[in-house]
């Protein structure tokens, strides 16, 4: 079942535009939503949440049209933004109570467990939390009302490596054991190597790629070796190549790998693919 579908989404601002953005994700999967800062990730997410009104396009969440079922959709999703901090002088207890009142399916036992697991003290004020703890608090709220789809906008940006790993493991568990779907926007692409099933890559407001992560990674290899080994044919095929101290490095389409005789080839991870493709695209 398709839990999230974005079709031909367009939103134009002076100096920036989302153009014909389309992708979809299935229930019980993790989709990584990647792109550079300013690529349009947050605008896309805000369009899904109807915080931004798209110029055109259609978005469906849990089978419902986002334009006409704003309230119903929000009841079935959880939204966590890495940068959001609200009511800094309020205690977590008060904000939790208000949030809980809006969800008939609120699970207070689970909420208490998550607060304990994340080391969150309900008597603390929001302003007393670190950035990472604020994200954890939002996650605890989102996961306590039985959200079917978690929309996470840069949730791991402010977290230390251990907390990040803990969260990523939790995402995998939520997905595998509870069938929760996770739409995960980030520019820390190594996080997605650990948990994403599919990725959608946004570049300058357009979808550069959308599909299974493994298939996307299998499309490329990373080539490294002495610059002297680069033939003209190979130079033409290398993507985002750099040369330093006589050593060349670049991305290759897997089909072009036979051209790289004399260079060491290794599987490319998401970070390497994104960095090289972005570098290649720069004017």
């Amino acid at each position, binding site marked *: 079942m398709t839990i999230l579908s974005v079709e031909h989404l367009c939103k134009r601002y002076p100096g920036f535009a989302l153009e014909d953005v389309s992708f979809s994700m299935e229930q019980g999967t993790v989709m990584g939503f990647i792109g550079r800062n300013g690529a349009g990730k947050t605008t896309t997410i805000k369009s899904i949440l109807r915080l*931004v009104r798209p110029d055109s396009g259609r978005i469906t969440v849990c089978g419902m049209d986002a334009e006409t079922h*704003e*309230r119903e959709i*929000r009841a079935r999703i959880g939204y966590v933004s890495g940068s959001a901090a609200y*009511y800094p002088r*309020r205690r977590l207890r008060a*904000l939790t109570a208000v*949030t809980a*009142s*809006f969800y008939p399916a609120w699970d207070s036992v689970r909420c208490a467990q998550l607060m304990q697991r994340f080391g969150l003290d309900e008597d603390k004020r929001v302003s007393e939390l670190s950035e990472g703890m604020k994200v954890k608090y939002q996650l605890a709220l989102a996961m306590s009302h039985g959200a079917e789809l978690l929309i996470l906008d840069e949730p791991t940006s402010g977290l230390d490596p251990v907390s990040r790993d803990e969260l990523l493991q939790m995402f995998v568990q939520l997905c595998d054991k509870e069938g929760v779907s996770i739409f995960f926007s980030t520019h820390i692409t190594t996080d997605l190597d650990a948990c994403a099933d599919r990725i959608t890559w946004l570049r300058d407001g357009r979808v550069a790629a959308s599909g299974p992560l493994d298939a996307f990674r299998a499309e490329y290899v990373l080539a490294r070796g002495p610059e002297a080994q680069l033939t003209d044919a190979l130079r033409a095929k290398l993507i985002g190549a750099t040369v330093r101290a006589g050593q060349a490095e670049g991305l290759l389409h897997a089909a072009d790998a036979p051209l790289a005789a004399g260079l060491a080839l290794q599987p490319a991870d998401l970070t390497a693919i994104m960095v090289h493709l972005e570098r290649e695209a720069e004017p």
Partner: protein
Amino acid sequence: MKLLLKKECRLVLSPVQLLFLLLSGLLMIPNYPYFITFFYTGLGIFLMMQAARENRDAAFMSVLPVSKRDMVRARLALAALVELMQLASCVPFVLLRTYAVHMQNAVGMEANAAFLGVGAGMLGLFNRVFFPLHYKNGYDLGKPFLAATAVTALYMIAAEALTHIPGIWFSTVCESYAPAQQLHQLPLLAAGLAVFALLTLRAAQVSARRFASVDL
């Protein structure tokens, strides 16, 4: 809406706003332009909106299962509640002025039933100007407040001026604090409350429509 209003009362309504209700006591000053009381109500609403903005209430609301239109309606409902509480808190002082402390106000309209009706209209006018201007972008507060204050000031001046035109109903019947005369003022009180309701509802409609198309 009930849940939202509850949330507004718990997170947005500040004690300062409630303290402003005590300013209904201004009606006990012997000579005073009593409509100033309602300017303080408007100021309290402005401060309340400012606090909500600085607390990033919109970001908090964006995680809750409510539409942007609902957010606006709830805020207007809270403002209307505060304003009705202000009017209600004026009533004991009007009764005191009517039955216990007889004083003729030399500088403005008497504190009577007609005053409450005109005051209700004034608060409705404040809502009609302030909220739709604010929800054009959901951020600006200073200019909407200045505009609403200017319009309500003109309204107040017009009302006060009417009390000085001899021989008209507004200056003869509405300037009395005698209980029998105040009975004749009740239609004005009812009309004022109706105007308040209509203007506030219209403000909510326009504000909700505008905010729905704002990009947060």
